[in-house]
């Protein structure tokens, strides 16, 4: 089981954390708030899957949060105009895919570093959206919430969709040729190219897919409340990267699994509400996130150093 050693240790930490909470903050385990927490985390899980795919391919996408906000607003505006759901879903996915394609063209097509490109697109989308919305929220019609289902069913449905998507993607990543390509390109793009795998096309498709998945996540998030906040995606990419990195996805690419990212996300998602239930200050959440990323990466670096491996450049 050593291939999944990292994932198991994260799951172990998660289990330990849950036991700790059960002993010291049992109020955390009430069914309705827990269900709501899970439903709120479902969109983040989808974005984390998207981010994990991108990271495994040795890229990075810090524009995911702004992309999420834009897609949320687009979905909200379409819903406010009473578009049928069958139109809203593909339209939102398309918007996400197109924005992802822009990242893809710049990174894979022109060979620009993903960090700077996605930094630029992140700011561009965020400021453009802020300018256009002028801070106004979008009001959603009643029927749109939870896709018209009662709340508990809607929440359960969202969680199932997210988990199902995770399962599909994880299976695809491990067993399909395309998934193998992603790992290959992420480990060594030049070697992959020599083996006949087109690294640039894989990279481009990764960004398009990440965009579409983030659009879907935005949709899953929009149906949960009666309004859309144009700032809803702020900081989302950091959460996704933190979850992925904690779960064993390497920043330098080629390693990691979606199940690990799930474990990482669950671990991190519990931190915020756990702090509340332990009556600690909520302002430490962002700092905790940064610290967790740092600790996970340092642990990886330490292990690599002591086992004599060289460094991987992002």
């Amino acid at each position, binding site marked *: 089981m050593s291939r999944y050693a990292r994932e198991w240790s994260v799951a172990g930490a998660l289990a330990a954390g849950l036991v700790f909470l059960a002993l010291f903050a049992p109020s955390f385990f009430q069914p309705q708030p827990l269900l709501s927490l899970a439903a709120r985390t479902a969109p983040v899980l989808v974005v984390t899957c998207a981010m994990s795919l991108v990271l495994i391919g040795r890229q990075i996408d810090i524009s995911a949060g702004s992309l999420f906000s834009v897609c949320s607003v687009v979905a909200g505006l379409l819903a406010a105009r009473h578009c049928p759901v069958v139109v809203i879903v593909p339209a939102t996915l398309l918007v996400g895919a197109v924005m992802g394609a822009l990242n893809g063209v710049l990174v894979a097509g022109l060979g620009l570093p993903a960090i700077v490109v996605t930094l630029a697109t992140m700011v561009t989308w965020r400021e453009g959206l*802020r300018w256009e919305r002028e801070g106004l929220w979008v009001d959603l019609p009643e029927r749109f919430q939870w896709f018209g289902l009662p709340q508990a069913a809607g929440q359960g449905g969202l969680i199932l969709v997210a988990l199902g998507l995770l399962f599909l993607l994880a299976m695809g990543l491990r067993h399909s040729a395309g998934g193998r390509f992603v790992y290959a390109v992420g480990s060594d793009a030049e070697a992959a190219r020599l083996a006949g795998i087109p690294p640039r096309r894989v990279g481009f498709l990764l960004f398009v897919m990440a965009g579409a998945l983030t659009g879907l996540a935005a949709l899953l998030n929009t149906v949960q409340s009666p309004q859309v906040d144009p700032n809803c995606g702020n900081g989302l990419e950091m959460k996704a990267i933190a979850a992925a990195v904690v779960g064993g996805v390497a920043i330098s690419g080629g390693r990691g699994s979606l199940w690990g990212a799930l474990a990482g996300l669950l671990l991190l998602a519990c931190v915020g509400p756990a702090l509340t239930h332990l009556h600690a200050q909520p302002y430490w959440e*962002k700092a905790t996130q940064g610290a967790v990323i740092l600790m996970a*990466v340092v642990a990886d670096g330490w292990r690599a150093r002591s086992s004599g491996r060289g460094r*991987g450049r992002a």
Partner: protein
Amino acid sequence: MAEWVFFALYGRHFASLDNSFDLLRHSAEIGLLAMAMTAVILTGGIDLSVGSLLGLCAVVLGMLWRDAHVPLGLAVVITLAGGALAGAMNAWLITWLRLPPLIVTLAGFSLFRGIAEALTRGVDTFTGFPAGFLFLGQERWLGAPAQLPVLVAVAAAAWWFVHGTAGGRSLRVIGYSPEGARYAGIPVERRLALVYIASGLTAALAAVLYTARLGQARADAGTGYELLAITAVVLGGTSIFGGAGSVPGTLLGVAAIAVLNNGLVHLRQPREVAGLCTGALLILALAGAAGWKKLAGRRRRWQLDAQPNRSIP
């Protein structure tokens, strides 16, 4: 190419280039960050944490002044030391643990801002700085904004170091090929540590200027500044991959951004448009640089193909 960008913007906004010293003040902080960022990017790295570190240093300065009642001069020195220390932490992770600068500074981006927000509980703002301190940020000295000598001093030091000393010139070698630099006897780790510590130090210095300019220290100080600094460096002709670039180019990049912001303010555009334009500008600059390189490569190949095979034995 950097000059071309600058003059294009300069020409368009010439009419609005009156004595907007306020924008010069704002640019002084970006300029400081961009100086250190140039050195970092030359080595092929990046520092995404400078904006958040600026915020943290501002908060630390405010806390030292207001809560710990430390004399302001000493508080400034402690803040600068703190910035250098944060830079040293980045440097240690990058050189000792061989972690990619990307993820280390990305974690710092989140961590520093998070600590700043936690320390101020999200809402606290430090005010009440003495007039002597605020002079640095808001008054003029010999007819120019008081920040200007600071910026000029740092820019001159950066210019001298990067272009004049062997240590500075080695930065470009490190960026072009770290292993090659090591074989050439260049102390790569030491140079890298130096640039990241300098980055932290300038972030702290910029935080001091920022606080003096606004008269208050807040946790959200410096938000987005890392993007502006990187944009200035890239606009100024430095390659984002490292190995090529110049300090005067970055200064022109800072000026270009200042002119752009100035123009937007005069056109009475809201703040968001400035952010939008900066992001778009960075994309255009990067795409332009990449496209230029491809064209140059293609043109050279045509020229080589057109010549008879003299050079091939």
